[in-house]
């Protein structure tokens, strides 16, 4: 899920391509090439992720979006440590992911048979994440309208918490399995909260600031021998940081 939307290869793809290359090499030994001289290099080469842009919902309907925003705000409520899940952009992150290759499982094997897997094997069902959200949110909505006569977002915070807890403990069962959907939502909310802001969540690098995580920096030699000192640099996203453009004044 954390892979960039335009994809630079999953492990499964890598393994498949290695197999394909090995087979091809075996079949056409004459096509093998040896390289000498300089290592391959191209100027201007880069494969950056496409940053998520703010704007209309791509996957959620308006009602679904309102419900998901309310849910992520209960999973990560605003407090003195950080902003809440809604303000951090978790719902936007989930929306963009569901509209892309994660939502339709285009990078996974999704044909049958669909056996009941062990708990350690994770989700083994036929429905892809987009279908699970659509069905799960609809089931929640109809359950709440039947029992509480109100949609999720309109419930008071305590009742929202009680409902989510019920889902988590399988005390409230939905046609698709309440705990299954709850775990999916919780997982995706955490991903949105902690992943790079380039994917739509973790707005302003809120979670990274809270943790003191420095982001996409990759060299700490200058600090290796400085024990018991606080690392001074602020976090950096794949697409940069507000400090890079102080005059623009726009924080990511």
């Amino acid at each position, binding site marked *: 899920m954390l892979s960039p939307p335009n994809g630079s290869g999953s492990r499964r793809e890598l393994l498949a391509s290695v197999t394909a290359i090995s087979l091809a090499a075996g079949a056409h030994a004459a096509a093998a090439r040896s390289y000498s001289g300089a290592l391959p*290099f191209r100027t201007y*080469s*880069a494969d950056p992720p496409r940053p998520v842009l703010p704007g209309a919902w791509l996957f959620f309907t308006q009602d679904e979006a309102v419900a998901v925003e309310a849910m992520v705000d209960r999973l990560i409520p605003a407090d003195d440590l950080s902003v809440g899940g809604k303000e951090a952009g978790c719902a936007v992150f989930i929306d963009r992911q569901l509209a892309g290759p994660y939502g339709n499982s285009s990078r996974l094997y999704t044909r049958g048979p669909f056996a009941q897997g062990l708990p350690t094997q994770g989700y083994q069902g036929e429905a892809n994440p987009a279908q699970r959200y659509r069905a799960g949110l609809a089931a929640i909505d109809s359950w709440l309208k039947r029992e509480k006569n109100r949609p999720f977002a309109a419930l008071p915070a305590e009742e929202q918490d009680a409902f989510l807890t019920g889902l988590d403990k399988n005390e409230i069962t939905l046609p698709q399995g309440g705990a299954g959907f709850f775990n999916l939502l919780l997982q995706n909310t955490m991903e949105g909260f902690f992943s790079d802001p380039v994917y739509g969540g973790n707005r302003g690098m809120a979670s990274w600031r809270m943790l003191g995580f420095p982001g*996409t*920096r990759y*060299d700490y030699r200058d600090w290796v021998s400085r024990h018991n000192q606080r690392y001074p*640099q602020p976090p*950096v996203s794949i697409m*940069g940081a507000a400090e890079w453009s102080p005059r623009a004044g726009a924080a990511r």
Partner: protein
Amino acid sequence: MSALRNTLAALALLMGGATAHAEGADQADRITRGQYQAVLGDCMACHTRPGGAPFAGGAPLETPFGRLVPPNITQDPETGIGNWNEADFTRMMRTGIGHGGRRLYPAMPYPAYSMMTDQDIADLWAYMATVQPVRNAVVANQLPFPFNIRLAMWGWNLLNFRPEPFRADPAQSAEWNRGAYLVQGPGHCGSCHTPKNIMGADDTGQALRGASLQGWFAPDITGNSQTGIGGWSQEELVTYLRTGVNTHSVASGPMREAVENSTSRMSDADLRAIAVYLRSLNGTAPPAPQPLAATEPRMQAGGAIYAANCAACHGGEGRGARQLFPALAGNPLLRQANPETLVHLVLAGSQGAQTPGAPTTPAMPSLGWRLNDQQVADVLTYVRNSWGNAAPPVAPHEVAKQRDGEPEKPWALVIGGVVLVCLLVLATALLMRRRRRRHAVA
């Protein structure tokens, strides 16, 4: 090289008796020496396309006047120089006038080659005559009007070029003079490193002080300690030329090719001579500017960008890593007035030269996707004014210009071209009038 020589000698031996043997060995020596002249002159750099057959024509040169394509100089009679003789070749090297009186453009550095000794030019021809003919038609002159008129080079030569042999300076050592000969003559270092005047000729008063070409700035290579190689030791300079990398710098852009094709193949004695000469050039340079204050917004932004993008390799204090990542502290390349090369490196990335002495070709990734024009400008302003460096700040428009890949159209040069044509017309008119007068007298 010695293999070639042995083969040629063996061939000669097979073909004839004892006298022919002596002659053949002599010819073999000449060809071997000529091959070395081709290395010194770096003929390969322009006349061979990347991945193409040697000397069969090169990649287009984007000059400020338009596009020129280095021609095929193999021995193919139709598309190469197979129908040239030694006299043609010598005249071309000395005067810029080719076979059949065709005038060459000074993108071919004949003003430098004209300084070469008779012996060196003769040896070079002996080698060129052995180059495998390759059929490859090249349209060399792709300049726009009025620059496409080759005759204009008659006027250009009149104004900018005096064919003179190299004159040794008796006050200097033999090594210094050898270095001067190599730099000014066959090595034609000034073709890139000497600023050009309005007509594209070397501004000899500024020799080797650094010049812009094809989106790169060929830096100052005089002994100036601020912007030149004055801070490099003799051995460091030799190492750079031999391997493309030393403690201070890694060759990039066109210099990478010059190192791979030319300087890395030069003899150690010649490299030492070049270093002695370059280090002795100590022109008066304007005083170094004051570095920008670290509290400046540009410096603050640049510092943040540097820490997140550059420090991993170049080090938090710009010290780099020996032989792998150039130190930025005290690096004269950063202190050039013109930041073109630096902009190029950040936007496009770069790979070091691949030489027997430095085969690993470390590379710098492109950062153009991650940094906008302002950010590239600010990080360069920061490195140009940190750790003892001081140089003018970089403006975002200087980055935008390179990002668009649009070569600058210097209006001065266009106006220069028009002036050139006017001068030519004037000169022709004068000549005709004089001739008419002479006729009248007769």
